[in-house]
């Protein structure tokens, strides 16, 4: 670390992690699909910044590569794909939600508190770079998961899935100083493929049901 006082360093990482959490709440409160995707891109940009910061502070260079890949795949490629899907399908906003937005926000707040409660014993062990990022990453994972449950449109479910992945990645970098490079590359590849597959799947859904409402999938059981 050297250059920067460890306290200030950890606070900088905490700040970045908090920004990620903030975008999560923005996604939960947002009904417009394209804005959700934009917010996801913004979140990924913050994630890349966090990763770069951790790389700089710890001197572990391969995290830079992960940061770069985050920018390329999650800030540029995947949002582009999703935007295309939205454009082609002509669905702009989500009018009917499984859980309405104010209660969804309350639930997400509860999830964050739960995440802090769960991780608190680990945090107090004190071997982490920062105090918050582990708890925040768990919160992001939970909120992403909840978004997938609360929303009906396939596109927002993809966003929820990707948010979950962002949370995992944040946990990996901030708590464990990054996974081995090969694992990270694999994960990125997985995410990209998943993004593509879900994109195609959404198209098929649209073709079959004239809608991207995933609750229509229940009709397939016959």
């Amino acid at each position, binding site marked *: 670390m050297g250059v920067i006082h460890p306290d200030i360093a950890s*606070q*900088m990482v*905490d*700040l970045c*992690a*908090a*920004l990620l*959490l*903030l975008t999560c*709440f*923005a996604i939960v*409160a947002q*009904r417009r699909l394209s804005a959700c995707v934009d917010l996801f891109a913004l979140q990924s940009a913050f994630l890349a910044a966090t990763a770069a910061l951790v790389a700089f502070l710890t001197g572990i260079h391969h995290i830079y590569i992960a940061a770069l890949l985050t920018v390329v795949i999650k800030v540029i490629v995947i949002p582009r794909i999703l935007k295309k899907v939205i454009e082609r399908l002509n669905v702009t906003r989500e009018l009917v939600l499984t859980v309405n*937005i*104010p209660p969804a*926000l*309350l639930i*997400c*707040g509860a999830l*964050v*508190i739960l995440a*802090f*409660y769960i991780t*608190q014993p680990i*945090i107090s062990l004190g071997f982490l770079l920062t*105090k*918050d990022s582990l*708890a*925040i990453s768990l919160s992001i994972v939970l909120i992403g998961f909840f978004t997938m449950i609360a929303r009906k449109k396939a596109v927002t479910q993809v966003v929820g899935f990707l948010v979950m992945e962002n949370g995992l990645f944040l946990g990996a970098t901030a708590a464990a100083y990054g996974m081995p490079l090969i694992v990270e590359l694999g994960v990125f590849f997985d995410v990209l493929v998943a993004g593509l597959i879900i994109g195609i799947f959404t198209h098929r859904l649209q073709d079959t049901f004239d809608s991207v409402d995933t609750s229509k999938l229940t009709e397939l059981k016959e």
Partner: protein
Amino acid sequence: MIESALIILSQAIAALLVSPFIVGLIRKVKARLQCRQGASVIQPYYDLSKLFRKDVVVSTNTSWIFTATPYILFASTLTASLLVPIFLSKVPMNFAGDVIAVVYLLALGTFFLILAGLDAGSAFGGMGSSREAIVASLTEPAMILSIFAVGLTAGSTNLSTIVHKTALLQDIVTDPPPHLMAFVALFIVTLAETGRVPVDNPATHLELTMIHEAMVLEYSGRYLALVEWASALKLLLFLTLLSNIFAPWGIATEAEPSWMALGMLVWLAKVSGLAVVIGVIESMFAKLRLFRVTDLLGVAFILSLLAVVFFYILRV
């Protein structure tokens, strides 16, 4: 004693004199962004002085509540702004009230304004009052909690103490996540409480959309002047809170005249900067439907709550 009185007086005068300028500045920014020349930034001063001199038309349906409200609103808003550090971090009135008192003083004004909206018997006034009631009920908890989150880092809910300690970076816990959450929450609260886009549109008189303007629709002449001045003061108060609680640096920490002059300049720069930001936001976003406003205010409430919980869980 005399020194304290002078400081209180100068604080009141500064707040009163600067507030119309902020309103003018926001209007100017919006005009420029819409490629219009726009009125001068000092236009609100002309408006106020003209309104003060005009005749007053009062509805025959109204009671003394209607005539007393402008004065009560003005007095309560001014009292609240005496509790907020503007250019000097140690406000003489600090002991008289903390952040909860500020919020409840503003609520006192809102309460009477809601009554005045109902007083004339017009459906517009009732509509404005009813909407103001729901917006206020969702913003005020968020406001208390967000300032309280910052207050915890300084170990006090008195605004002066918070600002003073943060300005000197003494005895405080610097802690970005709660601060960030609290700042975003308070910013949303500012937009909502001062009737700005995307919650309310100060420039509209379309019955379907207006909140604050509907409530004060029956006011004219000097009553309107007082109400408008009070809402400008409230806007300034919120911008001052945002700038001085989260970035108080530059504020005078001792009652030295030269420091206070500098503090005044820095404060002007900060609130003008925030006013420009608000102008830009008003130009960028559309007004939300009334029942979508709750989504936004829900975000503010949850963020402020999380800011407090963060602190409670991790710091102490």
